[in-house]
């Protein structure tokens, strides 16, 4: 591990992979919740128009791809909101128009369509310091919005009409989600590539849903899987000399495949628990949740059912378990 950190290009590659692994599942959670799993794939095509334009004008490809992607995403969303995108034909025209424009522009720029390959499949080791600064800044924006506005984005993507009766500007939130997805796609073209970025937005989210219960836990778990597979895949590809983008996506899919038997085991464990419905959260990492002010002292015969839990005794209290800890009760 020390060896690969001594190469500056690998340092940049690992940081870029880390950032991609953070942001793709973070925004992907909302995209999947809205059943737009293939949006990222379509936006990847649109990003190529930006890359083609960059090749033609001799400028940096990521900023132009970001702009092309956002424009494409917002057009798609507005078409959808006005009910004009029915039948998916409008989307198909936009997406293949982007792909054709990218190939066409790269052709007349003299680079040729072959020059697009590194963006289609990623070229992690060619990330420049400037790229890294841009990726870092935009990743902060994406994380602040996807985590900071999680309650609002959750409401908007699960029940649009109810969200409107909470005074939320639903259309604005929808446009924000697709725009952030667009930025993610454009940024990921260096790491996993435009053809595979959608996988990193969707697969960790799907795997997380098998492993943990609840939207918030799912968001956290998806990000953890995204980071682990992106960094792990990038590092491992250095040693086996494989394409990092493909390695990362295959790792994520392996986690997804493993999540099925794991979810079965988790359910088995839950069924074996004393009071299955009453067992509280099953987040992978058990949090230290302190119960709110609780004047009652639990003791055998206090009226709350005692349950042996490892090395101590919990008491069933209103549907969850209380465990004595110093001067308060933890919720187990």
């Amino acid at each position, binding site marked *: 591990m020390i060896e690969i950190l001594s190469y500056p290009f690998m340092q940049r590659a690992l940081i870029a992979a880390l950032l991609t692994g953070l942001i793709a599942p973070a925004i992907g959670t909302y995209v999947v*919740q809205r059943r737009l799993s293939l949006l990222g794939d379509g936006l990847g095509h649109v990003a190529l128009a930006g890359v083609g334009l960059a090749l033609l004008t001799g400028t940096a490809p990521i900023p132009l791809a970001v702009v092309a992607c956002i424009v494409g995403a917002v057009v798609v969303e507005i078409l959808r909101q006005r009910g004009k995108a029915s039948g998916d034909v409008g989307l198909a025209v936009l997406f293949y128009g982007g792909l054709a424009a990218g190939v066409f522009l790269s052709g007349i720029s003299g680079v040729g369509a072959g020059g697009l390959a590194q963006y289609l499949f990623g070229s992690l080791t060619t990330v420049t310091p400037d790229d890294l600064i841009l990726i870092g800044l935009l990743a902060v924006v994406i994380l602040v919005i996807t985590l*900071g*506005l999680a309650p609002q984005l959750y409401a908007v993507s699960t029940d649009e009409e109810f969200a*409107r009766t909470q005074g939320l500007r639903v259309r604005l939130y929808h446009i924000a989600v697709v725009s952030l997805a667009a930025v993610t796609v454009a940024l990921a073209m260096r790491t996993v590539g435009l053809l595979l970025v959608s996988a990193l937005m969707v697969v960790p989210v799907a795997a997380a849903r098998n492993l943990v*219960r609840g939207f918030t836990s799912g968001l956290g778990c998806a990000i953890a899987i995204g980071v682990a597979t992106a960094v792990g895949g990038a590092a491992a590809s250095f040693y086996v000399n494989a394409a990092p983008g493909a390695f990362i996506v295959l790792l994520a899919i392996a986690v997804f495949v493993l999540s099925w038997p794991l979810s079965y085991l988790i359910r088995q464990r839950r069924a074996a628990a004393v009071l299955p*419905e009453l067992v509280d959260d099953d987040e992978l990492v058990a949090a230290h949740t302190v119960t*709110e002010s609780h004047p009652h002292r639990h003791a055998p015969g206090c009226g709350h059912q005692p349950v042996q839990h490892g090395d101590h005794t919990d008491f069933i209290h209103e549907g969850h378990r209380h465990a004595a800890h110093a001067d308060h009760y933890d919720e187990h």
Partner: protein
Amino acid sequence: MLVGASTVLAAEDLTVELGGLPVLRGVAISVRAGEAVALLGGNGSGKSTLVRTLLGLLPHQRGTVQLFGSPLRDFRSWSRIGYVPQRSAALFGGSKVKEVVAAGRLARRRLFRPLSRTDRVAVREAIAHVGLSEQLNADIARLSGGQQQRVLIARALAAEPDLLVLDEPTSGVDLEHQRVLADVLGGLLTAGASALVVLHDVGPLGALIDRAVVLSDGRVVHDGPPGDLGQHRRRLGGHEHLDHGEGTAPDHDEHERLLGGAVEP
């Protein structure tokens, strides 16, 4: 109609077309403070369209809507309204009960702030109100239809609203929990809240209803004490037969049940 501080919801001459077809034709409806109004009518009579229009979820072509004295366009105090939509449209996949219910606090929350202690207490209390405390962390997709309906009711209660707008809250809820819901609603009404309840049939909520509004084919055909429905039924009987061709009017049996009458078959 007198529109003042005591009227929490008022609509006049409300006309809504969906896909070029008239669904509401000049509807007037009001809910006064502390009042429980039932909105009745057969399938396709426009009940859900009306409540969704009143909340600004559907555009209207003509007429006015006022919520708490403000025109709908300027209304901002959304925490005063608790909406229970018909169960179905939402994509809650993988959510915990408490996460769904917490969305009911959004109108009271500021951006980029975590749930406050007050929010958490309101969420727990709302869930306890509908008898789901043991399912706090359950996956909503694994609950029965009736339990899911109660989760949506808890979400509306979490806002601690002054006006509850419920679209068929009793559909799919067993009789025992319809009574639980009636108790919850009764408690809120006693505390000064108002309610507009779309109902397919009155059931255990009947005793709480101060006034019944009956829609038929996009028009109000009755607006008065629920006790007058029997008399109205006979008057309505003649119209219904004329309307049957369009398939929008309630069928006779349904009307029988709806109005709770036991007159002629």
